[in-house]
């Protein structure tokens, strides 16, 4: 294909059907650069932000970039990441869920209570399953009230924030604190893959990724559609390989990859697939972008909404179990504190729009990484929660500012 300018102008008379052959890597890079200048920043600001965070904290305290702290960071960010993935579904709809903190608390407490080894305990999987099902059921309840009764999600989940906090207190009763003695549950956040297993899983993941990319490429070529250059596919696989190898290598210097990392990877893959590759995911974006258009296209908007609230509360429940595992106990404060705000902030810092229709599961992971790094770094410096909240608040503000500035730029370039 001849060198074509970046497609910023849409008024040009090149037919949609006349894009022959494949792009070269140079053309791809030029298109990316043009998009960047037009305000399509993607994950770039957040990656730059993470590098800055790492440099600043490392220069203040040389404990920050150590293998031990790296493993701590994975464990610390796990619960927020999980809950933030659920929040992404809600923000994509243009809704909000303020109840995720205490819903995670309810799930953590249910699992802990069912698994107390007092002779009446249930099998481990049943205990965990019950907590997750309870989470999903809570989400369905929220969704039904929001769609069928028509109460705004802000109000319903604000009531949930209070109500589920109350349920946590009622369930704990006068026990005060429930120590978790179930080894499986504790193992999530406190046991580690053997170094060899970690490497094998990385290799498997890379093979899977390369296979998926190649199959997609072949299908496009077969249908005569332009496909991405081979070199770019290779770069993608190598890039993931390098990042993955660094993660595994560094973690193996210390205790290794925690099991909870596998839970995060699994959730990431499943929900990314659901959002990007399934009809349901497409409908989530459509409802968030233009609910009336979705309705006229015959999409059952209510069902999509209810499903998203169910997914969100389910992920909150999973996050609650992870948190309980990390703390090895639940108490009357389960699901409280900064969990709710950190989870929503993570999704937003990662680039998910509060106005619906824009965002990815990736946002939850990147945003949670930023928040957990700041929390962790300031903790190493011995600074108080007060400082942590102020700094995290400023980062949130910066992220949203960058987003709206780039959006304005995209509008001017006709790309929004």
């Amino acid at each position: 294909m001849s060198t074509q300018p970046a497609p910023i102008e849409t008024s040009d008379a090149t037919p949609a059907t006349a894009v022959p052959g494949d792009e070269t890597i140079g053309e791809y890079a030029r298109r990316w650069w043009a998009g960047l200048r037009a305000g399509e920043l993607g994950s770039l600001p957040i990656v730059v932000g993470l590098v800055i965070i790492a440099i600043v904290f490392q220069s203040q305290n040389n404990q920050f970039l150590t293998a031990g702290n790296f493993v701590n960071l994975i464990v610390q960010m796990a619960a927020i990441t999980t809950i933030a993935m659920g929040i992404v579904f809600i923000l994509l709809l243009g809704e909000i869920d303020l109840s995720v903190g205490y819903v995670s608390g309810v799930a953590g407490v249910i699992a802990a209570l069912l698994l107390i080894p007092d002779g009446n305990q249930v099998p481990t999987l049943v205990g965990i399953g019950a907590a997750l099902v309870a989470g999903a059921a809570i989400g369905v309840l929220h969704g039904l009230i929001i769609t069928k009764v028509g109460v705004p999600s802000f109000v319903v989940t604000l009531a949930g924030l209070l109500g589920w906090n109350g349920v946590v207190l009622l369930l704990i009763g006068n026990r005060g604190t429930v120590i978790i003695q179930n080894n499986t549950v504790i193992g999530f956040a406190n046991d580690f893959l053997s170094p060899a297993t970690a490497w094998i899983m990385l290799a498997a993941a890379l093979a899977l990724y390369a296979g998926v990319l190649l199959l997609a490429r072949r299908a496009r070529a077969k249908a005569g559609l332009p496909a991405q250059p081979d070199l770019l596919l290779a770069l993608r696989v190598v890039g993931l390989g390098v990042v993955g190898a660094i993660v595994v290598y560094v973690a193996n210097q210390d205790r290794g990859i925690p099991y909870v990392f596998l839970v995060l990877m699994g959730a990431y893959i499943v929900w990314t697939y659901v959002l990007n590759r399934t009809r349901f995911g497409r409908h989530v974006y459509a409802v968030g972008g233009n609910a009336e258009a979705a309705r006229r296209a015959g999409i059952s908007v209510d069902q999509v909404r209810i499903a998203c609230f169910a997914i969100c509360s389910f992920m909150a429940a999973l996050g609650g179990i992870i948190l309980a595992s990390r703390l090895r106990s639940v108490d009357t404060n389960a699901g409280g504190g900064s969990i709710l705000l950190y989870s929503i902030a993570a999704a937003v810092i990662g680039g998910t729009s509060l106005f619906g229709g824009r965002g990815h599961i990736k946002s939850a992971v990147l945003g949670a990484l930023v928040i957990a790094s700041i929390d962790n770094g300031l903790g190493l410096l011995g600074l108080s929660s007060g400082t942590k909240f102020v700094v995290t608040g400023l980062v949130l503000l910066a992220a949203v500012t960058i987003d709206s500035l780039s959006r304005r730029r995209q509008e001017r370039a006709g790309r929004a």
Partner: protein
Amino acid sequence: MNDSPILELRGVSKAFGAVQALYEVDFHVAAGEVMALVGDNGAGKSTLIKCIAGIYSSDSGEILYNGEPVSIHGPKDAAKLGIEVVYQDLALADNLDVVQNMFLGREETTSLRRLDEVDMERRAKETLQTLSVTTIRSVRQTVAGLSGGQRQSVAVAKAVMWNSKVVILDEPTAALGVAQTRQVLDLVRRLGEQGLAVVLVSHNLHDVFEVSDSVTVLRLGQNVAEFKTKETNQTEVVEAITAGKLSKIPGQPAAEVVV
């Protein structure tokens, strides 16, 4: 042109609270016919279309498709009959790309409930090509970045790619410039030539006279006149729009009714 109507409405009424948006409207369109639907603002054109599309359910009256009474309870029912609507506000999702919009609600899937992006992209391109839509550079750009005419083309292409028999366009040229209006009108005419029944809602009588075969005039929710385009002129149609004879004085303040 086949004279027996493929779609026919008999005595359709629809009220929104105290507002009688439609009163006993008769309407029909045949295969290969371009039927213009005209009337002043608030005459009930969009409401009539939404009743056909199943967005609103009519209070009384019946809809016949190929002579058979049908009940249309939602967009899916209409689509199943082969009735597609391009709405005045287009109803495109700005955050989705051209292909995603064209297949919205009817996505193709392969195994594992996986979206068949490749096939959808191919079919979208084909459809745009058969409609001679040549100005859209990439079918993978979001529709937010498209011009008014391009958005209109996408909305029309979305409507005709389903083997549709009846295509209804609500003011497709309202927001367009000269050249883009031209494109859309050509598109409308081509649809009629391809044997589809086309309903064209428009305020622009010049456009109406250029592409339509017949004209139905709505006034205050009532069908006040029907013409063969060849046998009438703009003056006659304007008169019907502004002062056509009403069969019933609507239950509105008398001042609003000009008889």
